[in-house]
């Protein structure tokens, strides 16, 4: 069971590493220009860690990812993503993912990030990509969408959420020092979150049958 999760995480790490420059550039505009550097450093370690170890359960695997991120990313994103994965590790099943389990996973990530960073939606952070994605899954559940449909909607909402950070004024994180000057730039953390959600969705999609 952990093989599939490992593959997804490995792919996710690759995508983040590929986007190192892009994320750093976004952070230069409204932060301190290290988001891509921080994330790439962390996910390089994640790749080494998970490929060099065997895990009995997804819980173990995710906890290992969390601890690796926490101890290598640094900055604001390190503890936030680290806590997100730690919270996920507490709920992730070993069985195949369902809409229900994905909602639980997504909500845990949000809970972890909010516990740590005390931000709400609309403050121009990673939450602005993640919360809409989780909300989409919840809606799909109510609407009775199938997993495939739900995943597609989830990805679309994450992307919309990321783009919606452009006109926002930051009130959390380093970008908040800029006040109104933070308006007009896409949030780097929302961008990395979207990239992760997109990758997870695309990978799950591969295995959908």
């Amino acid at each position, binding site marked *: 069971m952990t093989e599939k999760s490992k593959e997804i995480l490995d792919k996710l790490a690759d995508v983040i590493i590929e986007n190192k420059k892009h994320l750093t550039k976004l952070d230069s505009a409204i932060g301190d220009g290290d988001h891509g550097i921080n994330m790439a450093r962390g996910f390089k370690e994640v790749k080494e860690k998970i490929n060099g170890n065997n895990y009995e359960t997804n819980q173990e695997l995710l906890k290992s990812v969390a601890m690796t991120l*926490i101890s290598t990313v640094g900055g*604001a994103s390190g*503890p936030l993503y680290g806590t997100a994965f730690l919270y996920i590790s507490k709920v992730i099943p070993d069985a195949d993912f369902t809409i229900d389990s994905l909602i639980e996973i997504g909500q845990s990530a949000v809970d972890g990030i909010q516990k740590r960073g005390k931000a709400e939606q609309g403050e121009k952070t990673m939450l602005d990509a993640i919360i809409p994605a989780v909300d989409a899954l919840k809606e799909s559940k109510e609407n009775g969408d199938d997993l495939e449909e739900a995943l597609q909607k989830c990805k679309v909402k994450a992307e919309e959420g990321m783009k919606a950070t452009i006109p926002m004024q930051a009130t959390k994180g*380093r970008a908040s020092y800029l*006040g109104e000057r933070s308006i007009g730039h896409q949030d780097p953390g929302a961008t990395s979150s979207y990239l992760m959600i997109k990758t997870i969705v695309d990978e799950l999609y591969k295995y959908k049958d």
Partner: protein
Amino acid sequence: MKKKLVNNPDHVVEEMVEGIVLADPDKLSKVEGYNVVVRKDSPNEKVALVSGGGSGHEPTHAGFVGEGMLDGAIAGDVFTSPTPDAVFEAIKAVDGGKGVLLVIKNYTGDVMNFEMAAEMAEAEGIEVDHVVVDDDVAVEDSLYTTGRRGVAGTIFVHKIAGAKAEAGAELAEVKEVAEKVIKNVKTKGMALYPCRVPSAEESTFTLDEDEIELGIGIHGEPGTERTEIMKADDILDELLGSVIEDLPYESGDDVALMINGMGGTPLMELFVANRRANQVLEEKGINIYKTFVGEYMTSLEMAGVSVTLLKLDDELKELLDAPTEINIMK
């Protein structure tokens, strides 16, 4: 500024930490495997003081590890807050059973990483508390921001809380006096020229040859205002004016004054700045109890200066004057 006296930028923090400990091997040691500097005689039977943050602000933080100030300091990557495991290692190395106070500068990353470390330490039964320094008056302090940044005023927190801990106070008392300092300390800085982190190709920001930035942070974060270059006295009037009106500091107050170089400023210019600061404070009837001129909280090779005032009462004076091993705070 492309040239630097470094080897591989990926190892610069580790090599720096080794160099720091080698400069004072009788008093400092490095926690194996981490960029953490602690007093060699750790743990001591007193409340321990731990601080840290991104590197590039030297002598902050490791330069303030020593009797009468910090017990441990964590050096993150350049301008990147350190990770919780490193902070946790520092806490474990210095805790002597009377608890540990973390002095955190108010940056989202620093606050979160230190809080996580505190949770780890508490899970192991170590008593940990923390204070958050936010002395930079250039940032608007509102409920809708992450609040003000911690800058040079942090050094006074280290000095005074360090003296209190050395005197045998309990964790709550050390925290209380640290918070008194935080309430009474204000800073504003400016830059003439930017800095560049060793791993980056370009400076974090750029300034024209006739342009300066007022209210800048210690990572080259944007300030409040870009203006034409002014003469030193006018710059000082501007910085000190903002600082004074913020608390406000008033006629009859006793203060400590810090004229802090940002890394690339000749000492000559800091003394010219100090002259004007003295004139302004004298005009306002504010008494300078003690003056610190030099590099305390830098931003790599950034050229510029920050001005800090700390309002003193009798307790703070005594603790500021208390002995310490840290030469530049004597």
